[in-house]
């Protein structure tokens, strides 16, 4: 996993529900179905990602960010085209 993985993990862990531990985050984790992040908190994850990486996520791109790895792909492609 690339260097942004730990940074993304640190953002995600803030929004984990109480019954999911940070150790359960893996690259393949599905944010909603496996990590139980609800859609409201997923928005907060994305807004924090925007601030942290200084990028802008478009409305149709949030749907691509369903797993940790796919979120990283979106983040990396955004950073690379800055």
């Amino acid at each position, binding site marked *: 996993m690339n260097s942004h993985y730990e940074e993304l993990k640190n953002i995600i862990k803030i929004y984990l529900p109480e019954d999911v531990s940070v150790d359960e985050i893996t690259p393949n984790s599905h944010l909603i179905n496996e990590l139980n992040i*609800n*859609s*409201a908190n*997923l*928005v907060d994850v*994305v*807004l924090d990602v925007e601030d942290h990486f200084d990028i802008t996520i478009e*409305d149709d791109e*949030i749907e691509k960010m369903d797993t940790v790895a796919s979120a990283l792909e979106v983040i990396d492609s955004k950073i690379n085209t800055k």
Partner: protein
Amino acid sequence: MNTEQIISILPYDDPFLFVDEIEEVQGTGVRGNYTFPKNSFFYKGHFKNNPITPGVILTECCAQIGLVSLGIFLIGDESRLLETKIALVQSTMEFFEPVLPGEKVVVQSKKLYYRFGKLKCKVMMQNVQGVIVCSGELSGMIYDKRDE
């Protein structure tokens, strides 16, 4: 969309409609008011022989004016609104003064963000003396019914 239209679209009715008037609405925020009728259903039990408007009802009033009315304005299109459903998703409120039966309150709401279907606002409720009775932050989500 004008303020009367917004009230007519609000998905609430007696005894759970807590908006009398939208005084002003813009893309950045909204101000509206409500007068709690003395015979409102909750005064019978909150509290026994000591009627005070419950904090959850003040929160609901803030949400109906500050989140839902503003959300309707932001979406703007009535046909689009029919395809959506709404939910309160986050609430952080502080309560400073009691609101007694018959009191009028004014709610002001400032949009913090509206992104990806989530509207987050800073809300404040004042009584007619201008004293802040409660304030905080509320968030709501707008979902497409199609996504179910």
